[in-house]
């Protein structure tokens, strides 16, 4: 297992490599990196042209890991992702079935525009995400470790798309919203992409290092009250619960699952380590709360009608459940 110092160095190196290609978007890059260090899948959502695919491609280029990209379309079949049995004939003329792995058999899988595939195909991918194994023709085949699915989806052009079911969205550790870059960053993007110089990305980590980093992430200690705070946040997303704010009661049909609390703590651990701290703070939990919870809230029709977003509801939860005080009047 690598040391925390090396962990920070490696992470900084990866971020630096990404920074060669991606202008700005520091938080976006940090969230994606957090998912990688937690071996959690990430869902990027943003309008076309914001560099979602470029970010993930750059990330995969910065680490020396098997990478595959799948462009999801309505006619994509599960076998196109998982692989299939093909009939082969050897030199002796004997025929046999041989499994031909699909693109899922890579450490880094880029599922581009995942919401354009049919639910059947989505389900095949999402099952692999959860089980980290694929069963084809009765034979279960483990996926390589680390295994990380980086999916993108476009919130507009909903025509001909198949929104991911809530149960499948729950498989993603974080859902990161890709913001439109500020003007300065946009100018830099234009300059960088319209010249003849092509930025190159070096590989600064391999599978062993990444696996070690994932293990180290999980070893970060979290105080009991910090874990309790994550639990309280998740509980407050449930409209039937007493601690739920009014907005949640009104707009949320179902709150976050227990995976939400796991995601909060895990992502907070990675965040703490990336900040050079050996323990999780309540602030780390709150920092990743939006990305960890926004795709886990099932909103009601009233929220759609009123234009209330999941992010606004998570903000309401954060406001309603402040970081727990020390527990004594007069204490800070």
């Amino acid at each position, binding site marked *: 297992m690598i040391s925390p110092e090396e962990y920070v160095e490696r992470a900084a190196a990866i971020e630096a490599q990404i920074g060669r290609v991606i202008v700005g978007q520091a938080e976006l890059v940090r969230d994606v990196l957090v998912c990688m260090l937690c071996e959690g899948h990430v869902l990027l959502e943003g309008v076309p042209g914001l560099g979602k695919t470029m970010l993930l491609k750059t990330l995969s280029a910065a680490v020396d890991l098997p990478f595959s990209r799948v462009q999801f379309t309505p006619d994509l079949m599960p076998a196109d992702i998982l692989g299939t049995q093909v009939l082969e004939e050897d030199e002796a003329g004997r025929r046999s079935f041989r499994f031909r792995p699909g693109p899922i058999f890579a450490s880094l899988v880029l599922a581009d525009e995942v919401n354009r595939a049919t639910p059947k195909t989505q389900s095949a991918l999402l099952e692999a995400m959860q089980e980290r194994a694929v069963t084809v023709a009765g034979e279960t085949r483990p996926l390589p470790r680390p295994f990380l699915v980086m999916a993108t989806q476009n919130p507009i052009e909903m025509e001909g798309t198949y929104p991911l079911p809530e149960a499948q969205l729950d498989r993603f550790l974080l859902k990161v919203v890709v913001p439109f870059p500020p003007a300065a960053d946009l100018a830099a993007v234009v300059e960088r992409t319209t010249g003849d110089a092509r930025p190159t990305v070096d590989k600064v980590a391999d599978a062993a290092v990444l696996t070690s980093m994932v293990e180290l992430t999980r070893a970060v*200690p979290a105080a009991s009250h*910090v874990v309790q705070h994550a639990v309280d946040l998740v509980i407050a997303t449930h409209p039937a619960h007493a601690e739920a704010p009014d907005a949640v009661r009104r707009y949320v049909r179902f709150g976050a699952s227990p995976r939400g609390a796991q995601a909060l703590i895990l992502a907070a651990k990675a965040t703490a380590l990336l900040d050079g701290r050996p323990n*999780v703070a309540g602030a780390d939990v709150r920092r990743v709360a939006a990305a960890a919870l926004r795709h886990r809230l099932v909103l009601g029709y009233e929220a759609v009608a009123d234009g209330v977003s999941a992010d606004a509801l998570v903000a309401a939860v954060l406001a309603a459940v402040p970081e727990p005080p020390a527990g004594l*009047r*007069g*204490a*800070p």
Partner: protein
Amino acid sequence: MTQLLVGVRRRLRLAWGVATAQWIAPLVAALALGLVVVGRVRPWAWPEPVAGGLAVLVVVALVVASLVVKVPPLVAARAADRGLETGDLFATALELESRPGSGGPFGARVQARAAAVAAGRRPAEAVPVRLQRRRMGVVAGLTVAAVALGLTANHQDEVRRRQQAEQQVLDTEAAKLQDAAEELRTATPPSPARDELAKRLEDLARELATAPDVQKGQEALDAAARELAGELSPNLLAQKAAVRGLDRSLASSPLPGASAGDAASQLRTAAAALAGLSPEERQALAERLAALAATQAAGDTDAASALAAAASALANGDLTAAATALGAAADAQSATAGSVTGQEATVGALSSIAAARGALSSAVAGRGQGQGQGQGQGQGQGQGQGQGQGQGQGQGQGQGQNAQGGGSGRVAGTNARTGSGVGGPGVPGGGTGNNPSGGLATATVFDPAGGTDGEVLNTAGQEGEGPSRVVGKGDGLTLQNAAQVPLGDVLPRYSAEATAALDRLDIPPTQRALVQAYFAALAADQ
């Protein structure tokens, strides 16, 4: 880190005390102000002391609570984390410390980092004591208002002082009643009636001591006096005067054959000695018994009848009947004497109650001193004027020591002629106060029924139909005529008439008791 957390725990106690004080102080200050305001509009004595006591109590309670409030180490660690913004480092370190081996590769790093962060940091940095200026301003304003209102004089202060004085009077009078009850208990010979009376007085004393105000105390005294007065015989004073008078008469001039002893024993001795008396002695004894019977007629009719029967039998020479009658007289006198003794205790209790009632009345009226009791003796003179028959009336008033006297004068003109006269104003008479230490046994008093004609007052009549030189004749009473009689002779009758008058008139029980006590005192001195 441990040293820092120890300091943080101490600091947390202070912060807790200050925060709690700031939270509760406005409520206490508002409550205190409300109590002071109540004390300004209501004559209650408790609001202002309670307001001050409440403030002191809250301060003491806060100090004590701050000293004993429980501050677990984890709370101190979390407070330090938040105050120093260490990202839950101390709390995590403390938890890892309590669970050795649970920190994995980070355990030692967390401890080391916590120690490094704690180095050089002061508890005051971790737990700043924050004063909420607005809230404290409100508290200061309320406190100043309460103190100012409390120190500013208002009319309720006077009411409270008066109430306090009244309460002191109540306590004093209750103590006096308690003393009177104690005297009754220790009086000899012991008597269940006295004990019962003492218990009633003690109950009354307690009721008086716990009375909310003088009026309630007066009501309690009135009720008790009414109850006790109802138990007295209307003829008590006459009985008492008869019994005492007979005792004194026989003590000063014993009956034949009986040189000493009380009246009953002398009567019995005399009955036994009748046979040895000479006819002259019998005659003298008969006359003496007849005279004694006359003195007993008002107060002890049985004794009077028996004495009269004895006198008659003796005069007729019937010694047996005389002896029997003398025995009956002795029995009647004994019974009356016992009854008088029992009721004297009640009268004494009534006197104590009356004194307490008087003291309470004085307290209510704001007087500092009580008024004495006494009877004056006055003489009035009137002058008629007119032609024919003239009439005049005059009144005089005498003033004695610690007493108020009263006198009356009357002028009646007699003339066959018709006319009218107007009496002149009475001359103030010389009053004699009721001085218990004086020698009332030999005192003489004015008896209107025994008066004889006084000096003749001649006045010039107005000219009328008849001769106008006829003057009116007045029977103004003087100290020197026959209307002045020994007090002992008229006291039973005065007492009986006074008691009868008290029964007829609507007089408060305490005043009735006062009159009864007065005559009882006179009778005791006789």
